[in-house]
């Protein structure tokens, strides 16, 4: 049941990404809502949920953008694993805004670089026809980070709300956003 709820939320986010953000570009950059939702889900400290969200979001990004399948999916999965391990071991107290900002910036840089690396390797080995344009790094990264920081809290809240709704459905205790 919880996976169906996550699937519905991700489909809605993918729809908003495709339908709304081409009209709301910020100096040519658009935020990756699915990446921000992955970050928000990872901060809920539920490994399985975070990995499932990362898998689905990665597949949506790869297939909708026509890049080598695995570029973003593997990047998102590795990001989810790293965030889970780091937050589980280092952050012993309640999460605060600093962690969210740090996780968002790290996620944009980490997944962007890793996805480019995987897609370039896939093109090099003849597995894919088109690689992610490396110029994106030079021209759009600061705007993308700024845009992501604006939207990271709403997406974190959505992830928390989704997580709490699932817990509520399962009859468990849930956290306040």
């Amino acid at each position, binding site marked *: 049941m919880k996976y169906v709820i996550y699937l519905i939320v991700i*489909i809605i986010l993918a729809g908003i990404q495709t339908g709304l953000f*081409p009209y709301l570009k910020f100096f040519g950059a658009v935020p990756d809502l699915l990446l921000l939702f992955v970050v928000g889900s990872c901060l809920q400290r539920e490994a399985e949920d975070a990995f499932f969200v990362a898998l689905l979001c990665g597949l*949506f990004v790869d297939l*909708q953008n*026509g890049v080598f399948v*695995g570029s973003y999916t593997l990047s998102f999965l590795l990001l989810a694993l790293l965030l889970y391990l780091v937050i589980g071991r280092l952050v012993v107290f309640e999460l605060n805004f600093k962690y969210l900002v740090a996780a968002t910036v790290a996620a944009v840089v980490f997944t962007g670089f890793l996805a480019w690396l995987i*897609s370039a390797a896939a093109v090099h080995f003849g597995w894919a026809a088109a*690689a992610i*344009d490396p110029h*994106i790094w030079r021209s759009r990264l600061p705007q993308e980070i700024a845009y992501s920081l604006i939207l990271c809290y709403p997406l974190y809240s959505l992830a928390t709300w989704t997580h709490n709704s699932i817990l509520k459905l399962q009859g468990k205790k849930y956290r306040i956003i």
Partner: protein
Amino acid sequence: MRFIYTKAFAFFSVCVAIVAIVTFLEAKGYGGPIQAVFINAPRPVAAAVSSLARPVRNFFSTVYNLKKITDQNVQLTSQVYQLQQQLADFNQATRENQDLKQELGFVAGAKNQFTPCTALAQNPLGLTDTLIINCGQDNGVTEGQGVITQGYLVGKIIYAGKTSSTVLLITSSQFSSDALVSSTGDSGVVEGSFGSGIILDQLSQSAVVNKGDLVVTAGINPQIPKNLLIGQVGSVLSAPGDLFKKATLVSPIDFSNLQFVFVAQ
């Protein structure tokens, strides 16, 4: 307990295995159904959101560009009068051409065939300058074929699956194709340029290129038909010491909003 012995790690491994399977299916050309599900699932939401956002954006865009639109209207009106005159001359030349061909017994060349296709996904994050269309090998689409819309070349097929294909847009820095300046016949190479659109490169220094000249495909590559419009020369970029002349091209096509395209066969 070490992380690799936990249930979370097992779940992570299952996710990686799923990615490997999907990647394998995609590489072998069986990824069409999976791709269709992931591309089509958010479409109803995207269509609903877009139908709300587009009028708002158009309204503000129109208000913002009102002065520019008025100036453009004046320019276009005068251009229409000029083009009407040119059209009359062109009709006259066409008639003469047909008469002469008949006199000489000229054999007409085969006309190009175009397969209409719909854009499935439009690269929402702007990562690769590619477009996924709903035509594939089943429709006779093969890699290298040219893709047009509204009479202008927009790209070429770089991957042809069974039911869908990937188009590399002309604006991509990985795109290149032969081209010539319509008025003089000087040939060059058209390339995409990240952030600055389309470039006509490798023109000889003696080539005569002026702002507004039409640039068309040269037809050297048999998969991209000859005389397809690419764009108009925007500005000539050339220093005296350069080996080749270069020019920017302006295309009227909105590459971020391609709905329907035709594949040249």
